[in-house]
């Protein structure tokens, strides 16, 4: 589904923050991405959701060479990728409903379809009664759930989560991980960047370890 071959990344002509990364992400797989601060986790996540293009090497996503694809083609490829940011990046001036509906509206879906999908999704994350509430009035865990709902509402083939449990206590973090496992069982591939060893032990999956920009 996604293949990285000898990929390197540098910012503005600086030193390489990622070097010679080669990996394959298969459909329905679940990987943790681990590494200390500054090891390149966030940079690798950026490459995976095409927030950056590689300085060298090749990334193939859904049979398309990312660097050679046109911008509209890349935009279409991004529709297959759900991203959960460490800081959630919810739009605070919009309600929970409108935040979750955002990706569907970008896809020009009919409002009737959006309403049924978003209502169902908000119920599934356990925030059925909070649709009209704006994110600042929710707890960190609830905001995280909204970010997950927004990332998966378009049923992407792969979900990238950057430190999804970083700011949550263990019970809340575990409930998020259970949501991820449920999504994985439905066939969605997941890459979860974390440095929480407890989570990795309680929910064991293959590890991708990064050290100083290299996969080890």
């Amino acid at each position: 589904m996604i293949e990285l071959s000898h990929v390197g990344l540098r910012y503005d002509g600086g030193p390489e923050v990622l070097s010679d990364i080669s990996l394959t992400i298969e459909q329905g797989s679940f990987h943790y991405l681990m590494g200390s601060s500054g090891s390149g986790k966030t940079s690798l996540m950026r490459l995976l959701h095409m927030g950056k293009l590689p300085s060298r090497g090749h990334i193939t996503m859904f049979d398309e060479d990312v660097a050679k694809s046109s911008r509209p083609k890349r935009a279409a490829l991004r529709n297959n990728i759900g991203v959960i940011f460490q800081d959630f990046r919810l739009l605070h001036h919009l309600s929970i409903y409108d935040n979750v509906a955002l990706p569907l509206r970008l896809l020009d879906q009919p409002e009737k379809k959006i309403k049924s999908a978003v209502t169902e999704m908000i119920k599934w994350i356990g925030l059925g009664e909070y649709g009209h509430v704006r994110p600042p009035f929710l707890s960190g865990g609830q905001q995280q759930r909204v970010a997950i709902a927004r990332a998966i509402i378009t049923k992407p083939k792969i979900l990238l989560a950057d430190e999804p449990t970083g700011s949550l206590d263990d019970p809340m973090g575990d409930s998020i991980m259970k949501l991820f496992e449920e999504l994985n069982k439905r066939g969605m591939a997941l890459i979860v960047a974390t440095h929480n060893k407890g989570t990795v032990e309680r929910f064991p999956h293959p590890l991708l370890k990064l050290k100083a920009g290299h996969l080890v």
Partner: protein
Amino acid sequence: MALPSSHILPSSAFRHIGFMVLFMAVIAGFSALGLLTTQTVTKSWIQDTQNKMTLEILAFDEEEKVVFDQQRIEQNLAKIQKIIDGDPIIVSVDVTRFDNADDIDKEYQIPSPIFMTFSLHPDRAKNAEQRIMNEIKENVVQTIFKKPEIWQADINRTALTFRFAFISLAIGVFFVTSLVLSATIRTQLQASDKTLKLIYLMGADVSIIVSLFQRALIKPIIWGGIIGLICTGFLFSPAVVFLNIEIQPLLFYGYLCMIFLTFVVVSYIITSFTVRNALKTMP
């Protein structure tokens, strides 16, 4: 349903653009009225000069640097009238004297020139004017003739200057509008940077972001443009009536509609260009 632009851009983002377009529409409307008036007046003046020839009996001798007395000027007039009397190609003659000269002219007895306008027969021979000019010049040296073509060239030159000024004004209006729009869009792009990056990473193509900005801008441009053009109508209609300018209303309103459409088209192009240019570094 397309993503409402208010979800991404604050509703107040482009509110002041409407006021700018309103103001600019009034200026562009003034420019359109100026163009039309120039066109109408020029046409009327050109018609007035057809089959007309003018003659100025000078009040001084340019070569000798001598100022004539009024009596001599009157004598020259009498000579000319005698020459043209009964000429079949001259239909009528208008003589214009400057009796309302300044008090200072009267006090120092400064003589005034006399202007004559000849209405010529439309079916005259090709060299008829030249024949009359030669006959008069032989008898009265101190005269200046102007044939219709010379008047028409003068009128056209003046009209061209006015047209250039009014068209420059209209171009200036659209240029300033484009600059302000571009600066406002850039500011808004910076202010909404995080949100725009977010939707970009969600799969929004640049064209979707361009369309968000265009939809956010179209409302203030439409109301600003319409109110501006209504104001133009109210402001300038009394002037048209008062000055008795004969312009075709349909043509005037046609111009106003064209201005409105130009504002919309210019805004769309500038928005697209500015947003695409600002987002060109996005992967």
